[in-house]
């Protein structure tokens, strides 16, 4: 790691002030992406603003028809939350499938969303559930927020404060893990809210998380795994690496989508 100065504000507002004052400062949430990158000397922020003491960024509440999760809430807290388990069980399941138990004790929803790793799980949930990313400056829909590989609409000095998930009638998540890293090689989140169906795919897209309109249309007719039989995602725009080429990943999108619907429908 290169040297940096360290700051630990106690509120999002303080954090924003620090962030604005320091050139080339970075926010530290759970640190499970940033610190390994810094260890490899692939990132060299001059200052770290640690959000760990910002109590206003933590917590899970049901607010009307929305589950609102503070940015610094860990994956383990989301997975174990009675509120999330009751309201959107698939979201709790997803959080409980991220990384390993020890990573889940540190990694946060805000950190994951802000990083927008193409193999991260949360982006699929946000996109499929139609979540809103709330920052210290504004509110963004998931579509607006995720703009490309490791890229988001976040501007300089902007801090995610919470993510708000509207309730759905049914949802499911299935992923195929990368055998080595255990990140999502393909992850599919399906959600049904009234007649609206959303199918979001992570791990596979050259440009990060994306929706699969053909599957959404097929599920609109009938929300059942069978509706997806024979439906194949094109390999175009799907990324490939030593573990899975585009053709195989594209195939897995279909398989994972069926599994996700099966989970959502309890079949």
């Amino acid at each position, binding site marked *: 790691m290169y040297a940096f100065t360290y700051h630990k504000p106690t509120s999002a507002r303080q954090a924003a002030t620090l962030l604005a004052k320091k050139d080339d400062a970075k926010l530290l949430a759970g640190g499970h992406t940033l610190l390994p990158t810094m260890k490899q000397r692939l990132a060299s922020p001059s200052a770290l603003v640690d959000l760990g003491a910002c109590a206003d960024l933590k917590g899970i509440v049901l607010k009307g028809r929305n589950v609102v999760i503070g940015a610094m809430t860990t994956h383990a807290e989301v997975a174990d939350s009675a509120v999330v388990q009751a309201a959107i069980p698939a979201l709790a399941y997803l959080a409980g499938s991220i990384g390993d138990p020890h990573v889940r004790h540190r990694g946060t929803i805000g950190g994951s969303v802000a990083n927008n790793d193409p193999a991260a799980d949360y982006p699929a949930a946000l996109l499929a559930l139609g979540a809103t990313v709330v920052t210290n400056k504004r509110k963004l829909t998931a579509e607006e927020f995720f703009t490309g590989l490791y890229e988001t609409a976040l501007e300089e000095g902007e801090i995610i404060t919470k993510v708000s998930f509207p309730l759905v009638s049914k949802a499911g998540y299935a992923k195929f893990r990368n*055998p080595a890293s255990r990140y999502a090689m393909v992850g599919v989140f399906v959600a049904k809210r009234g007649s609206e169906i959303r199918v979001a795919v992570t791990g596979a897209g050259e440009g990060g998380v994306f929706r699969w309109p053909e599957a959404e249309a097929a599920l609109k007719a009938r929300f059942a795994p069978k509706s997806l039989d024979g439906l194949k995602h094109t390999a175009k725009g799907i990324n490939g690496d*030593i573990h899975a080429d585009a053709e195989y990943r594209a195939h897995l999108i279909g398989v994972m989508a069926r599994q996700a619907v099966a989970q959502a429908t309890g079949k």
Partner: protein
Amino acid sequence: MSATGIGAAVRRKEDHRFITGQGRYTDDVNRPGQAYAYFLRSPHAHAKIKSIDTKAAAGMPGVLGIFTGADLAADKIGGLICGWMIHNKDGSPMRAGPHPALAQGKVRYVGDHVAVVVAETLAQARDAAEAIAVDYQELPAVVDTATAIGAKTVVHDEAPDNSVFNWHLGDKDATEKAFQAARHVTKLDLVNNRLVPNAMEPRAAVGDYDAGEGIFTLYTTSQNPHVARLVLSAFIGIAPENKLRVIAPDVGGGFGSKIFIYAEETVCVWAAKKVGRPVKWTADRTEAFLSDAHGRDHVTHAELATDAEGRILGMRVKTTANLGAYLSTFASSVPTYLYAPLLSGQYDIPAIYCEVDAVYTNTAPVDAYRGAGRPEATFVVERLVEVTARQLGKDPAKFRMQNYIKKFPHQTPVIMMYDTGNYGASLKKALEIIDYKGLGKRKRDSARNGKLRGIGFSSYIEACGIAPSAAVGSLGAGVGLWESAEVRVNPIGTVEVLTGSHSHGQGHETTFAQLVSDRLGIPIDNVSIVHGDTDKVQMGMGTYGSRSGAVGMSAIFKALDKVIAKGKKVAAHVLEADEADIDFADGHFSVKGTDRKLDFGSCALQAYVAHKFNGQELEPGLKEGAFYDPTNFTFPAGVHICEVEIDPDTGVTRIERWAAVDDFGNVINPMIVEGQVHGGIAQGVGQALLEGARYNADGQLVTASFMDYTMPRADDLPSFDVGMTVTPCPSNPLGIKGCGEAGAIASPPAVINAITDALGHEDIAMPATPQAVWRAAQKSISRQAAE
């Protein structure tokens, strides 16, 4: 059998320190005034070094010294060596290029050592290394094993076509004749995938220099500290052996990769004198991936000839083995004498011919990794045998049974004289464990669920207990492969055993103590095993090749015999009897036919007080040493059967059942032996399903961390059903054959045979990843549709 003697599942004596965090690994060693080394490594697979400018770096904070290959050369520090001479078919010696510890003029693989910075802190050393300006002239890289020979790029001028050697074994003419007489010939092209050993403890070294005494001390992650001292002393020229102490404290796994003498430890111990401070280096995981010696990497064409009755007539094998950019310590022995002599497997094969091309490439050096040559041989034999059975329409178990060697001793056509075994017994037992009879139903059940189930056999044999020194000497080894032991009995009867073997997970502190407890009839807690320090232990050869039981314990056995013989002399004086009338059993010396006896501890005390005998006729004291040189290799063998279920929709292969029946001869501690089998199987399953080191065409290692290189994890593996059969080894006093490598040798073909059984065709390579299996399954489905 006593509760702590031979054959008992004694809980390990060494465990207390490990489970309480008190183990002492090399990186746990901290010397006063210690500085830190950081190695600047080549980012290129192949390049000329036009210049290295260290000026800016040298002035950076905390920097104590920056050294390059020129500094080593100026101090007359020699290059790293390969200790096994292989001769070409035409009798000429192998072509070996120089292997400097720090590059001289050229780098030959990504991770090659360009310079070292020693600084007050690791961060400062790394900061300074980034400020070193190296002017590289990049050269094209040769990476691919199969096409390295005659490639445009030459790795070493000494080997102008990249051929290290072209070697052969067996009778070519007899083999040709066997094939001419054959009714059926099975042909296979096989790749034995390159692996990274990945002991969980990364390599590390702490060099220290005592200027007053002129003595160097090296703490290092070694499986054989004496061999390291010998090489560092006699060949590299750090210091004479009496001025160089090598300590291998607790070592966190080796699997072969810590046998070798590496650049980093050489440089650390040398640099300690240069900077006048202890120098520590610990690999991070990516450095380990880049610079630990890799394993396997063979490309093979193999053929098996059978007659009309299905008897095997002959085998011919042509292998290209990738040895990487430099010859590591024992690299040349692995694809030759540790490989081809095992091609007879457990079968009576009248004629075998094997030809091996070893090649240089711009990749990390390749050397012994768990099994070393024997897994590669077993993969060839067991894939050939399985496919032959299938092509002949024979049950693979019956086909094996038909061709097993049944009479011992058996001379194979490829050097080895198998001493004993009962291969059929192992197969029978394994078939029972796996419930072979129920396979048909299990296959149908899987099919009903849309899954493919398959079963795969592997009848492996290995040559362990390496090795008779004269035999390996005649085959090109630069060292003898005996082992040493010293048994020091203290005056109150406690015992220290100094062994040249080295434990890095094998549990020697327990099993060796069991032997002593058993032989001397003393409590196991009265026995301490000392290893891993050249200042304490007499010359020894270390631990690899499943040799510590068969060779290391045999040396202890021999020394214990001498202790007992001396004890009898002492007891004769004390008990006032004739020496010939003294018996020793259950910890007591006694006079035949009387009730007069002396317990072992009292005998030890009498030996040291020396009151009861005349010092001229009997020396005081009770301490004996022995060197044991085996008379033959040992031949552990067994049968592993693997049952898999494949999900054709995802390509995921689940191992549903695993039966392992091994004949390791006599077993000292079944709990530890089973643990060795489990670990070996896991590494073999890793090779078959998960692991593979991959270089791209530019010679960049694309699998250089656990993010990309798939390590077997708990949920990749099943529980294993382990059974044993026993035919005691006739060539050593304990009847031990060795167990450390068996699982890794047996398992890859068992897995691949099971997958190909499930798929219904042979077209799958290791590692059989979900993607590869999915694709192969699609092929099966489209074939079935076409039929």
